[in-house]
């Protein structure tokens, strides 16, 4: 079975929001920095007063790879699958798969929108290519 994230105290609000089909981002009340992944301090100003804000479910492909060799049996059926770093429009970066998109259409800079994939009771953000 593919890994399912186990939320902890740092990340539970993020994963709970995913389960409601919402993307949220941890935001520093002291300096305004938006950071991913969620932590117990702001890495820009060392502030501890952190909050959550809704994030736009859109972004662009910073880089990607088409993985032909699955590292574990759980991903064998999916190979070749696309792994990407997505720059969200709200200024933070996440790793996702690019799904429901022809592989030959994927390029650096391609706009994407976020969808949610359910996996054993937990929803995960995924990226879907947008043809411009």
């Amino acid at each position: 079975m593919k890994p399912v994230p186990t939320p902890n105290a740092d990340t539970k609000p993020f994963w709970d929001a995913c389960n409601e089909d919402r993307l949220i981002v941890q935001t520093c009340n002291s300096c305004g920095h938006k950071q991913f992944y969620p932590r117990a301090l702001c890495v820009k100003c060392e502030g501890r007063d952190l909050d959550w804000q809704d994030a736009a479910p859109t972004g662009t492909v910073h880089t990607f790879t088409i993985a032909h060799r699955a590292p574990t049996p759980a991903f064998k059926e999916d190979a070749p699958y696309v792994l990407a770093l997505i720059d969200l429009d709200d200024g933070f970066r996440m790793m996702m798969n690019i799904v429901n998109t022809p592989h030959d259409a994927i390029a650096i800079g391609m706009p994407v929108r976020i969808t949610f994939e359910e996996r054993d009771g937990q929803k995960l953000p995924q990226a879907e290519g947008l043809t411009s």
Partner: protein
Amino acid sequence: MTRKAAITGVGNTKVGEVPGSTCMSLHTEAALAALDDAGLKLADIDGVICAYALSETYPMLSSAFCEYVGAEPNFNAGLHGGGATGAMMVMQAAALVESGTCRHVLCVTGDNRLTGMTRDKAVASLTEFGHPQFEQPYGISIPAAYAMVAQRYLHETGATLEHLAALSVSHRAHAAMHPDAHMTKPITMEDVADARVISSPLRLLDCCPISDGGAALVVSAPDAAADTRKGGVSVLGCGQGHTHEHIVAAPSLIDFGCKTASARAFGAAGVTTDDIDVAEIYDSFTITLLIELESIGFYQKGEAGEAALKGELTHGGRLPCNTHGGLLSFGHSGAAGGMFHVVEGVRQLRGEADQRQVPDAELAFVHGDGGILSAHCSLILGRD
């Protein structure tokens, strides 16, 4: 007599498939080879540093090693910086002997990932380098992470797959000159181009193999090097740079901690890239080396690939690089993978590299990278 810490003994095992080996037997064989090289006995050692292993996952590997060989040192610790560990061990050991804490520190690495755990199990185990919540659920692997770095690098610099292939070919030729190397069958540019894609744009021959093997060295105090059989190679400068562990959190996919690590090492040694005679730089993938050569400052951005194609990175070229064949062809057995670079740097400076010898090599640059270009350590080594 030198004023800096000195590497006084080096050793490595055969690398590749080493039937009958265990994680601990590889550690021991490498350690005894390094001690023999230095003309020392285990009883002369008062400090021990080990790394980590996948095939035998002791939480306290360095204690387990000391127990296995019956050593009771004054100082003993594990160090885990991925592929940077070998260089980091030298930096740590140098601090221990220069501070007077220890006289002779034995640094040991080894793993039998190939025969001890199978290639598939090693690859699966290595996915744990990915973030458990934000990377592993997406099917990350180490090749896929480096492939994403490669895709971005090619996009920004206009470098080509031929540039990457040139490194595969030169490393294989170097390994063919080393009696202990894993991959020695010559390859051509066409072989690299035709190899199956592992994770685009990286092909099989852009990736290092998984190997059994071990490597060790002894770092001695400035006044203790004279007690050893061959004297020492001086550790003239060391530096580290750290920006992230997980690629999702890397501040840049073009510049990495190797920039600060190397700047610190060059500064400490009082030399520049132009002074270096031979370089042994971490090369888990072809892209790893290309990016590091530029980020460190041996080449301008986007120019290292052309240099590789022109033969500048091999014997007779401007910067002979990974003269033992690197991880790409000498082999990769975990922390020992990065230690092989240090061992080769020392052999080059001592004039012991046989047909791989770079004539009159006086200054070597050695660099290790752990994780996904995450943890970096640079060393400047010099002949006394």
